[in-house]
């Protein structure tokens, strides 16, 4: 950047703007010779794109409550990404919602039965009497038999169904018993499964994975006839201890080995019939509304990056993590570099203008802080925040803690740069012309350090990102902060879930590398000494 470009001699705003644009073009021409810098810039654009996209893609309630958002309940837990089906020979069931194909009301069955029973009698009646009798039948049936059948068809082609099966009942106006019958394509029927006794409700989700009634039916109908009573009791005990879910057994082939869950799934059309039976008759007119019933299979695979152990969508966490990483990186590094540059420049200016002791004092403080080991202190400070102030450190606390140590390196470099600037003849002439201290510092010294400051900002971001990840990995940060380090912390005991372990680390590396590349390129431009290397 030539001095001329920085300081327009004459002319209005337009001219000044033109100079700035020229200066930028000059800089860009130099920058783009560095392939490493261009690669860093490309990665940075990807990151920024992700952070912006996160604002669009991620619903607002997840941003404020990521850790325990009620949405996660509907997702499968620890499920691989959906695209695994393109590569794997085992097919994973994608999240599936079943709507009833057929709804029947109980009273209609009774009504039809009554008509059939009294066919001869009805035939003898006049049309008017007949009408009355039919109305009587309807009334009787409606009062005695309150309830609905819902029939669902599930065409299963998957090998892995997932652990969960949910029955969702909405708009239920009277207390009712919910039962489930399953008719499998191979002719084995699992009937009479008592799902729940419900009181009137707007929405109720019944999970079947630990339903004892389902266990009973599955063991009785599927396991005992094949593997014998001993294996059956064994399996029953395991299921009752909630060692694993009973849901996958519904779909298993009844061949030897079913008690271990090792047989394949039966493919084909399953019929699920859910009956909602009112436990109380004498309903008022307004209660005759039909409830809505749905079956939901959360499935065995999910989305772009699967889910974690609590059903959280990893893709959403990764996107939110990019926001946090950029926010932390920029907040911390801009603040650290501003403090460091001002400190270093002041220190250098003081020495350059002959006040050695002031410089010496500033240097001593700097050196002490510079020599402190950062990670142990960060750990002990976050520990302190958590225990004494009951604060779960978030991004800004971490940026603040990093800032305590972060400015020192920059200050050391800027001090020596400021010292050499102070030795320049133009400073001497400024002093001779009567310029005072603050003017010299802010008008003549600091502007010379700005290019270096940009390189320093880029170079100090990777450290911040890695530090945050490390602290989060130790579990020292806010559990509701969806950072990449947090993901790794929670994935520690599920290393086999590659879709959970791999992405956050890749993202941390990409973010750190992007700024390291940009910083190195800028540093080479700013520091001509490095150019020969």
């Amino acid at each position, binding site marked *: 950047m030539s001095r001329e470009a920085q300081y327009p001699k004459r002319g209005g705003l337009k001219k000044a703007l033109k100079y700035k644009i020229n200066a930028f073009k000059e800089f860009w021409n130099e920058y783009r010779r560095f392939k490493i810098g261009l690669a860093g810039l490309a990665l940075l654009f990807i990151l920024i794109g992700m952070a912006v996209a996160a604002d669009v893609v991620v619903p607002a309630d997840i941003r404020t409550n990521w850790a325990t958002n009620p949405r996660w309940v509907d997702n499968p837990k620890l499920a691989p990404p959906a695209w695994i089906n393109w590569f794997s020979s085992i097919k994973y069931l994608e999240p599936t919602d079943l709507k009833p194909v057929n709804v029947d009301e109980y009273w209609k069955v009774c009504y039809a039965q009554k008509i059939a029973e009294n066919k001869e009698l009805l035939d003898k009646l006049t049309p008017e009497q007949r009408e009355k009798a039919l109305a009587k039948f309807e009334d009787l049936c409606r009062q005695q038999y309150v309830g609905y059948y819902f029939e669902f068809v599930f065409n299963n082609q998957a090998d892995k169904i997932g652990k969960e099966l949910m029955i969702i009942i909405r708009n239920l106006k009277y207390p009712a018993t919910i039962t489930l019958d399953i008719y499998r394509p191979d002719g084995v029927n699992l009937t009479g499964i008592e799902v729940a006794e419900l009181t009137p409700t707007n929405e109720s989700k019944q999970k079947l994975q630990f339903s004892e009634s389902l266990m009973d039916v599955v063991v009785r109908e599927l396991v005992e006839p094949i593997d014998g009573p001993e294996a059956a009791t064994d399996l029953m005990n395991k299921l009752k201890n909630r060692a694993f879910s009973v849901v996958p057994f519904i779909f298993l082939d009844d061949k030897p080995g079913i008690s271990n869950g090792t047989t394949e799934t039966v493919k084909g059309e399953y019929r699920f019939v859910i009956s909602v039976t009112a436990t109380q008759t004498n309903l008022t007119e307004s209660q005759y509304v039909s409830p809505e019933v749905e079956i939901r299979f959360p499935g065995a695979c999910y989305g772009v990056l699967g889910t974690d152990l609590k059903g959280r969508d990893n893709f959403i966490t990764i996107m939110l993590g990019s926001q946090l990483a950029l926010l932390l990186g920029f907040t911390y590094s801009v603040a650290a570099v501003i403090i460091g540059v001002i400190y270093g420049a002041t220190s250098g200016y003081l020495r350059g203008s002959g006040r050695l002791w002031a410089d010496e004092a500033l240097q001593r403080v700097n050196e002490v802080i510079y*020599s*402190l080991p950062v990670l142990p*202190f960060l750990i*002990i400070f976050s520990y302190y925040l958590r225990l004494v102030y009951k604060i779960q450190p978030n991004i800004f606390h971490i940026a603040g803690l990093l800032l305590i140590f972060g400015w020192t390196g920059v200050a050391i470099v800027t001090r020596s740069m400021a010292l050499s600037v102070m030795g320049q003849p133009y400073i001497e002439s400024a002093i001779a012309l009567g310029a005072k201290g603050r003017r010299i510092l802010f008008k003549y010294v600091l502007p010379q350090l700005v290019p270096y400051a940009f390189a320093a900002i880029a170079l100090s971001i990777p450290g911040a990102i890695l530090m945050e990840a490390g602290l989060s990995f130790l*579990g020292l940060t806010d559990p509701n902060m969806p950072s990449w380090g947090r993901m790794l912390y929670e994935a520690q005991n599920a290393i086999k879930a590659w879709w959970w372990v*791999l992405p956050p680390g890749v993202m941390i*590396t990409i973010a750190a590398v992007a700024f390291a590349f940009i910083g190195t390129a800028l540093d080479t431009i700013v520091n001509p000494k490095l150019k020969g290397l």
Partner: protein
Amino acid sequence: MGYGRYVVVRGLNALLVLFVAILITVSVFSVLETQQLEARAREELQNILRGMKIKDEEEMRRIAQKLWESLVERYGLNEPLYIKVFKWMYRSLILDFGEARQAYPAYGNTKDVRSMILTALARTALLFTTAELIALAIGILLGLFAAYRRGGFLDRFLSVFALTTNSIPMYWLGMILILFFAYTLNIFPPRSWEYVPEDVKTNTFLLFTWYLHHMALPLITIIFVAFGGLAWYTRNIALGTFQEDFIMVAWAKGLPEKTVLYKHVLRAISPPITTMSLFAIVNSFFGAIISEVVFQWPGMGRLYYSALSNTDTPVVLGVTYLSIILIVLTKYILDLIYGFLDPRIKTA
């Protein structure tokens, strides 16, 4: 400035840093400890009062007050903070960190924080120093080679490689390697530390291979993350030296290549390389804090992690304190070595 004066000045500086660092640590610790002791005293008071079953409320309050005062006395809660800080500073100096809140079986059958930390330190040193030495050997050789073949493929590739490996979180790479080598391929054990089987203990060769097999994954991880940066640093130093005038002179004099390389270049770059090496070894201790957790290696990092998750303050303090001393001392020793090897430093 003579070397003696240099040693003293750097020493005073190191002492100042040490003092500030320990003061901060001990102050933090004193506040935490006071809080925990107060909670414990309150609990004890509740227990005593519950056992006494006094009906009269006035009487109850009076006895509670009295008991509380005696408890405050016993736990030393009435001392002002600076006295406590001072006491703990003294105890830290003689490495007496008291008793841990609970025992950690991986560190021997003891609650004494000092002996636990020493056990942990030895294990960390075993793993990380080994890894760092190997990484240094590879890094220095690669770096020298890249500098010698300047502009070659290795040279151009090295900066990208170094910046990338520097950006990889070591603990994450560890997790990935465990996933791949331990769970998918079943080559190495997922836990790097287990109790040595009896039949292995008797045979030295078997013992050695047993350790190597168990340490392989962490070693690969640390070396992979570390050697690129070391190589790049070495290459930059060596390149800078190659451009120095005295090397030019050596070439111009017509000295044989080997003499120039070994007698001039290597000798000139040895001080910064030594610094880098020592620093890398000490810094590897801090990388350990996080990475050991992944490999379940019961060293300093694992101990730190367990203590943090159990809010075991004495252990947290002990490990922090020792890390600080280690780093400050090493920096001091490095200063001394550097000043000795490179006479220009002393006068600066």
